[in-house]
């Protein structure tokens, strides 16, 4: 059988790339919306930034789960 293409290495990297898509979109929306909110009401900047960081932490955790899972099933 002729081999047309071969891939060596670990699919985990691709898995992590896939896992990073969703949180990437999520953090993007989150920061964008916070920017919008700050533009509308600059006086609420402090509390908006606070909740934004918490939300970013939550969204980012998903991407990091991908990282950890990649190491678990190595």
């Amino acid at each position, binding site marked *: 059988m002729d081999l047309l293409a071969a891939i060596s290495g670990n699919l985990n990297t691709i898995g992590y790339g896939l896992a990073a898509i969703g949180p990437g979109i999520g953090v993007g929306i989150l920061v964008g919306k916070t920017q919008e909110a700050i533009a509308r009401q600059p006086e609420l900047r402090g*509390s908006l930034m*606070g909740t934004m*960081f*918490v939300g970013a*932490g*939550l969204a*980012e*955790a998903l991407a*990091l*789960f991908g*990282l*950890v899972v990649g*190491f678990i099933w*190595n």
Partner: protein
Amino acid sequence: MARLWRPLLGVMDLSSISGVLAAEPGGGEGTGMHMPSIDELYPEPFWRIGTWFEFNRLDLVRLIAIGAVVLLVYLGARRTRMVPGRGQSTFELAVGFVHHQIAETAMPPAMARRYLPFIAWIFFSVLALNLTGVIPFLNVSSNALVAVPMILAVCAWIAFVAQGIRAHGAGHYFADALFPKGAPKIMYALLTPIELLSTFILRPVTLCVRLMANMIAGHFLLTAFFMMTSYLFLQASGLVKTVGILTSAASLVFVLFEIFVACLQAYIFALLTSVYIGLAKEEH
């Protein structure tokens, strides 16, 4: 004692970053680029080998970080006065940040005051243990291992469950948390497992894994860039060496980014803990 300090002083042998330098002095026979792996987080123990309390480089880093926190808090709070000196006012600024920016945003003022020592303990421990990841010669955050994040997350879990039980009584608290009011009876078949999972299992697990994975990722990021720089400068040939300037500049930027991440993760850990405690009080 000498055995205790050797790994720190002889950091050229043990630290992951200078591992390449030590292995290939002056770029002799290059073995190619060495990329970081998860094994670096499990260095060989060098003290009390073979016992249950094996002591490795990460434990040493952990002790140094906690020692620094204890020392700083001691110096800051040693002689508290009405009119604070420089040390005390810096300390008050830090504790004030935890009090007003973290605890009070998530719970009522009286409660924030009561939980301040706990939240401050979490914040400063996490911050100190995270910052060792960017301090030269320490170069690894012991939060990249699951132990400390897990203990802190379990403490946070105990704190918010205890607060819920104290505020509403055990029966009421668990009933309210697991059977949200206003849902049709049949929906509980679906809702209760979800609530159980999200409130009592996923909260501590995410607290722990978020912190740990951030520190692992940060360590790999920094190590990868340091190693790339070292490889490009010492082993690469000709013009390729100049790419090393780019990677060393990038590693500087990532060090700054990691300092930001260290502070952010400490903030998020402390804030989420106070949010969970505040929610346990409110749920009814």
